[in-house]
């Protein structure tokens, strides 16, 4: 049930490269905690993972500020740091984390089938998903927003989208939200948010929509071209996805998050990643449903 190794050959290759290629990755905010399997209740997921000494974490590989993988194969971003935090509490070092790419459309199946232990992937907590998996957290609260060209005058919020073309990603929450709540907007979707940028520059689309934090990354990269307009029009609490019914593990991750809020590790993780372009927010309240 736990990790299935067949699909991880590529990851193994990436990991092998990482070993040879790491060097300037200075930010080691997370030292593995000094724990052993025996410290956790017998038979619990924590004990299993601590015993195995490794964990498989699903994250996005193409999300600026949150989860991005360069050619050297090392994932960077806030989600990645959160993943490392959880791993560290299980006594698992950074190098023993198997990072698996999860795309918007495959996160639930990956958790359900046990291909990943947890998913930290700008993963919005919502009730439909809670039917098939469980969420720890939230560890961050984002909200959907709009990215437009700097010379845009007609769009200042989602209500101005009627008759406009909006770009987002296949199978993502923001895309679904536009489809359902703003049916007059014309939605186009690609495989990655990066793919929406050129069309926005070229005027093929009028706006790009997703969570504000992701858009902020694009504004930081091209401040002359893009701006964010309007208020957040949804609440997107990012949670850590895990197998449904594993309440002990969920409680453990929630405890870990709260501890990290307290002792500044959470803030440090933020500042070394998304904090480069965004202010450090107040940590959200963990929802122990």
């Amino acid at each position, binding site marked *: 049930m736990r990790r299935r190794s067949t699909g991880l050959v590529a990851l193994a290759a990436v990991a092998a490269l990482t070993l040879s290629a790491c060097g300037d990755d200075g930010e080691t905010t997370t030292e593995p905690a000094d724990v052993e399997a025996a410290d956790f209740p017998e038979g619990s997921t924590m004990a299993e993972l601590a015993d195995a000494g490794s964990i498989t974490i699903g994250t996005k590989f193409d999300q600026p500020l949150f989860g991005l993988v360069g050619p050297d194969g090392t994932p960077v971003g806030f989600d990645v740091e959160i993943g490392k935090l959880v791993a560290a509490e299980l006594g698992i070092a950074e190098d023993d984390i198997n990072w698996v790419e999860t795309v918007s459309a495959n996160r639930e199946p990956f958790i359900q089938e046990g291909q990943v232990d947890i998913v930290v992937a700008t993963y919005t907590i919502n009730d439909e998903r809670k039917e098939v998996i469980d969420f720890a957290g939230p560890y961050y609260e984002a909200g959907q927003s709009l990215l437009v060209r700097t010379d845009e005058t007609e769009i200042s919020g989602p209500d101005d989208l009627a008759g406009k073309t909006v770009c987002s990603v296949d199978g993502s929450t923001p*895309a679904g939200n536009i489809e359902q709540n703003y049916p007059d907007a014309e939605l186009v979707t690609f495989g990655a948010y990066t793919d929406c940028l050129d069309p926005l520059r070229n005027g093929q689309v009028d706006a790009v929509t997703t969570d504000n934090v992701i858009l902020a990354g694009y504004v930081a990269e091209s401040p002359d071209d893009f701006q964010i307009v309007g208020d957040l029009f949804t609440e997107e609490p990012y949670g850590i996805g895990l197998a449904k019914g594993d309440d002990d593990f969920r409680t453990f991750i929630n405890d870990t998050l709260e501890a990290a809020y307290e002792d500044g590790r959470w803030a440090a993780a933020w500042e070394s990643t998304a904090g480069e372009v965004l202010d450090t927010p107040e940590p959200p309240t963990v929802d122990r449903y």
Partner: protein
Amino acid sequence: MDSVIEALPRFWDGFTTTLFLAVVSGVLSLVFGTILATFRVSPLKSLRIVGATIVEIGRNTPLTLVFIFFVFILPSMGYILPLGRVPAIIALTVYTSAFVCEAVRSGINSVSVGQAEAARAIGLGSTQTLSLVVLPQALRTVVPPLINVLIALTKNTSVAAGFAVVELTATGRGLARDYPADVLWMLLGVAFFYLLITIPAGTLAGYIERKVVFSR
């Protein structure tokens, strides 16, 4: 199952989009593929080279890359198209034309030399020989393989799902997101609509194939 019925309008939208893509790019591919084929048998060497180059690149490039070219690369070269169906139709047409061309060309080669000789003997030029004698005969032989190319095209429209077109496959993915508990039924629904196009077309190809064989 209820959710499938609830989602029927979306299935229908996806189906009509897929059908639209398949029909429009199918017609265009037949036209351009035939033009390409005449390039490849043209007396002008430069046209033959152009035809061969386009066909070889078309057949050896993954369709996804053809899509990326027309959706992302062409705009960065300054040729901006509207997103969605237009670049999808162009990409599918360019790709499929290469296969149509090959089918038509082998059809042309299947016409016996005597036919062309007879045509020239009664004074027809090369254009007339091609359009009045060779192509009509060749087309009959190439109809079954052409239908197979068009069936492949219908299936290939699914690649547009990755490039801003909500056709059947993209609809299926969206439905899988909106009804996480009924993923299986949603995808089976999508499969059903594809088969609605491809199975009758395949049967038709088989039927024509048998007809052609018997008429020899």
